[in-house]
């Protein structure tokens, strides 16, 4: 009966237009996403190319090991490819600047600094996982040992990290990623040439050279990462806008 009455009333009277609907809606507090939700959402915004390249490198190493075995030449091939992984990672971290999204992201609740730190964290873990995976695959097949092999593989990677971050931190151009691409190609070619020309480069007597190079590039990369993070806190003055 009540239902029928309601229905009848609806047909007889027109409902008045809502008054101050917007003001009322504005008063409502909507639930906010927490930091964990934000972190998870950012994983989805990492481009597919990062995952694909990492996976390809891992599969490529497996195939290479199956067909050619773990020789010194295989070590230099892998160490020459690894800088490209770091290039993809760095271009991912720096893409807010590359695509001029930095100013917008800086003004958001979770700002550019947090976005960058999350990207660095996620991609760092991915790179580390790929690196350890490759290391585990190779170390059992060579007589180089886990640490020595780790240093041989990671030194060109770190050199590229340092070189690319050096460029990003100093360049004002939006096309920085192309310069980083050139740096990566240079590092990769240089690594290949050294490995081919200096046939005893991986021998034990050169371990000091490798250890020094590894530590030096690791420290320099770290310094550039700190500089990069500081850059995310404050927008660089654009003289064209205020001059």
């Amino acid at each position, binding site marked *: 009966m009540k239902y029928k009455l309601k229905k009848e009333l609806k047909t007889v009277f027109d409902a008045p237009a809502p008054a101050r609907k917007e003001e009322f809606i504005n008063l409502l507090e909507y639930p906010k996403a927490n930091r964990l939700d934000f972190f998870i959402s950012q994983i989805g915004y990492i481009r597919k190319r990062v995952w694909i390249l990492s996976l390809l490198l891992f599969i490529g190493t497996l195939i290479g090991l199956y067909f050619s075995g773990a020789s010194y030449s295989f070590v230099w091939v892998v160490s020459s490819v690894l800088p490209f992984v770091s290039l993809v990672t760095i271009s991912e971290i720096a893409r807010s600047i590359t*695509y001029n999204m930095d*100013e917008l992201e800086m*003004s958001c*609740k979770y700002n550019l600094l947090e976005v960058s730190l999350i990207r660095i964290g996620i991609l760092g873990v991915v790179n580390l996982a790929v690196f350890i995976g490759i290391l585990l695959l190779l170390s059992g097949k060579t007589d180089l040992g886990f640490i020595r092999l780790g240093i041989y593989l990671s030194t060109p990677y770190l050199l590229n990290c340092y070189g690319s971050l050096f460029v990003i931190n100093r360049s004002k151009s939006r096309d920085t990623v192309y310069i980083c691409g050139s740096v990566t190609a240079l590092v990769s070619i240089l690594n290949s040439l050294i490995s081919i020309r200096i046939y005893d480069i991986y021998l034990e007597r050169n371990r000091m050279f490798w250890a020094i190079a590894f530590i030096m590039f690791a420290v320099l990369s770290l310094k550039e990462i700190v500089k990069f993070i500081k850059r995310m806190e*404050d*927008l660089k*003055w654009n003289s064209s806008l205020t001059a």
Partner: protein
Amino acid sequence: MELVIDRLSKHYKNKIAVDRVSLTLKEGVYGLLGANGSGKTTLMRMICGVLKPTSGEVKFNGIDVSEEKFRDLLGYLPQDFGYYPEFTAYDFLLYLSSLKGLTRQRAKDRTSELLKLVGLSDVAKKKIKSFSGGMKQRLGIAQALLNNPKILVLDEPTAGLDPNERVRFRNLISRLGKDRIVLLSTHIVSDVEYIASTILLMKNGQIIHKGPLEEIIRPIEGKVFECLVDCNTAEYLIANYPIINVREEKDKTFLRLVAEKAPCKEAKAVTAVLEDLYLYYFNKEANKSEQLYGIN
């Protein structure tokens, strides 16, 4: 609701971009007017926390600009913004929603609402790179509203909008200004004239005038004249008075200018508008530009 800007300054090596600006903003629309290089963008960037001031502070209801809480209440449209090339309009708004701390469901609802509001629902799934300048600007306005901000800062929001879009935008801003602080900068004087309850005139990094339209144009009220004069008189007037408008007509020249009293017998006093005041104050800059581009 109170946004307090206290002695805010930004110095660069050999330039003072913003010079000890102090303001208290309450609910309403504030129009920031100034020539290129007057410091508008720098001031807005500092209010949004994207640029660190050399000195001074910005606080909203006691919350400092550097705090996350402040950014949670802020909507900002920069003068120049980009987008990730793979993004559609819908993706762009969803991405910024996540940065603004909206839940997934709320982000979807809000994105659809705002795309409808700015007339981009039909192209929601199209890549932004295929958008015109006006469409990108509308998308920028939509993103600034995602978190229903209490402080809305819009740097040149009407740039690239066609006249219809501008009218729609003005109406939207007027509505938004009822229960939040809206600060917008523009070169289009009429936009400020129509929607701003308070006008801020900025020159050389300082706010030189502040107030409602009637108050702000008072200094030139009764001092704006129009006249149709011969070539020689026109030359004399152009050389000696701040000129607001010049139009060549057959054998005579029409002039609109500012003077303490009628500059010639043909001159008639007319009602002053904001554009007169703007051009009067920025006359020096305009003349400099004319010299630069060889305009006589």
